[in-house]
């Protein structure tokens, strides 16, 4: 399917470190990263708007560097959608078919089916300026898919929409992609969007690819400190490996005044050695609030301390937990149901080895 081999792109003063990436057939892949990390630049290199200085882009085994944009067969939805204002909804959607002078009826049937699928049946004679934000998104999606592209690229198409409309369109996009079986690479800086729509996620930060994995792996086992921080994980503590076996590392973590067992499932390509200085990470959602669930036996490490603050986020609560005798604060997340059971004051939390992760201390 799509493969990037050490693609190096320069855009003015910004340059993207050589990026390698591979996407499987029919995969929904999300390129995640903060603003200015080079996500759109990489997308432009794939579609052909920008020529890589080095490296190659392959699509279905075909090297794309000598193939012009119009012959790559890549559907594209830019951030501002680029709906042609002088064309009606139908003319926008049929533009690709007409411009390529395609005669086969299957393409027109596909376009008509897509118009129905995205719910634009009654709007086909309208001009883009008369449509709502959500309707415009639907036109842009249908237009890009109507040409039956080999690959579908989306550059933060939902960033300007409100929360409920975005969620509605996520569901629609997922349905469209599942139905039309088109491999998709989508750029976003929104974690929820990435995890909702992506099957695999690649994290690009400051022009460097930090991780490319299944989405559950990316969140539960971030590969670098930068990825962990970008994912909003603040529970990162310096530690030292003091023991190890085939499945587990034992870390000494002075900040928490405890020893932590961490599963070795991640970062296997980096061989951790006893004595290595690393960073131990704890996901706030996977910290066990033991005084709520006393019977939880999976917690291997228990920390006594104090809940110093409770923040209601509307969708749950975030606790600030200070382990006894420590200067650091541990973020703990809990659901709304648990909110009523938590009070400021003494508490105990539990950390399970499977829910901890480690990352190298220095940048790779």
């Amino acid at each position, binding site marked *: 399917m799509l493969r990037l081999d050490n693609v190096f792109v320069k855009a003015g003063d910004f340059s993207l470190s050589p990026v390698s990436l591979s996407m499987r057939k029919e995969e929904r892949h999300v390129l995640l990263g903060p603003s200015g990390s080079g996500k759109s630049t990489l997308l432009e290199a794939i*579609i052909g*708007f920008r020529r890589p200085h080095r490296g190659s882009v392959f699509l279905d085994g075909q090297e794309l560097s000598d193939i*012009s*944009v*119009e*012959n*790559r067969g*890549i*559907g*594209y939805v*830019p951030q*501002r959608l*680029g709906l*042609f*204002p*002088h064309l009606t909804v139908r003319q926008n959607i049929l*533009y*690709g078919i007409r*411009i*390529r002078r395609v005669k086969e009826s299957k393409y027109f049937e596909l376009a008509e089916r897509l118009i129905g699928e995205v719910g634009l049946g009654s709007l086909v004679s309208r001009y883009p*300026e008369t449509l709502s934000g959500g309707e415009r998104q639907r036109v842009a999606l249908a*237009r*890009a898919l109507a*040409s039956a592209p080999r690959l579908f690229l989306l550059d933060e198409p939902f960033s300007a929409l409100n929360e409920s409309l975005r969620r509605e369109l996520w569901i629609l996009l997922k349905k469209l992609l599942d139905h039309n079986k088109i491999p998709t690479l989508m750029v976003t800086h929104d974690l929820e969007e990435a995890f909702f729509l992506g099957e695999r996620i690649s994290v690009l930060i400051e022009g460097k690819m930090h991780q490319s994995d299944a989405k559950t792996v990316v969140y539960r086992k971030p590969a670098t400190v930068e990825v962990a921080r970008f994912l909003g994980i603040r529970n990162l503590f310096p530690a030292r490996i003091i023991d190890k076996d085939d499945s587990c590392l034992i870390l000494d973590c002075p900040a928490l005044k405890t020893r932590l067992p961490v599963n070795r499932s991640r970062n296997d390509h980096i061989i951790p050695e006893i004595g290595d200085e690393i960073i131990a990470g704890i996901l706030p959602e996977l910290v066990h609030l033991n005084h709520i669930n006393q019977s939880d036996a999976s917690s291997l490490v228990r920390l006594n301390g104090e809940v110093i603050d409770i923040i209601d986020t509307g969708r749950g609560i975030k606790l600030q937990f200070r382990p006894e005798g420590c200067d650091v604060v541990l973020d703990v997340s809990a659901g709304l149901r648990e909110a009523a059971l938590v009070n400021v004051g003494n508490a105990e939390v539990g950390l399970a080895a499977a829910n901890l992760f480690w990352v190298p201390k220095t940048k790779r």
Partner: protein
Amino acid sequence: MNFKNFTIASAFFIFVFYGGLIASLAYFMDGRILLETLFSGRTLFSIRLSIVAATLASILALVIAVPAAFALSRNSFPGRMIVDTILEFPIIVSPAALGAILLIFFNNPLGEWIQKNVMTFVFVFSGIVLAQFVTILGIATRLVKSTMDEIPASYEQVARSLGATPARAFITITLPLARRGIIAAFILSWAKAMGEFGATIMIAGTMAMRTETLPIAIYMRLATADIGGTVVLIVCLLLFGLGALYSVRLISSRLAKYA
């Protein structure tokens, strides 16, 4: 007077200043001279010559300005800054100097060769068109470029991703979206060409019924102290100019912004 009133007063000063100058023409306006001058063969020739030459010069300028403006708006290429700066050349050089440059050019070996083997420009109709073309080319390019700058390049990018070649994307997307801006640029260039005097007189001279455009006719009438006739020709030129500007305002008010 507070600041707001001061600014409004400044705006009104401009109106009163120009309006007053135009209104002062009425002092020398005479019904008989008006009809006599307006329907004289010489005046009709001047009007026809000016319209034909300005239209030709504007079309030629747009033929070059549209692709040039697209290149300047969309691409980064060596020398782009120089080309972009030189668009202002006809504005910074006085029209008379521009005409003198043309005249001098046709006296060098290359110019002489062109005059001999391609087309004659000095003291003939083609010289008028050339003088007007040189004067308006930069302005026309600048005006079309402003329109192109307002059209996001992402439209063309999307069109290309949908299978359009760069030329097809330009013809099917950019050109229709820039249509009103191009028409406005044409009208403004045409109005500027209609009023062109300095460069035209240098290369085409002042030959009655041959190279006598409307501005040259004004000059020639004034030279013979025919104030009444001069006023009539000035009013004609004013009506053409103001009509063109009004058309542009009309088009601009309908001009959609594609931000």
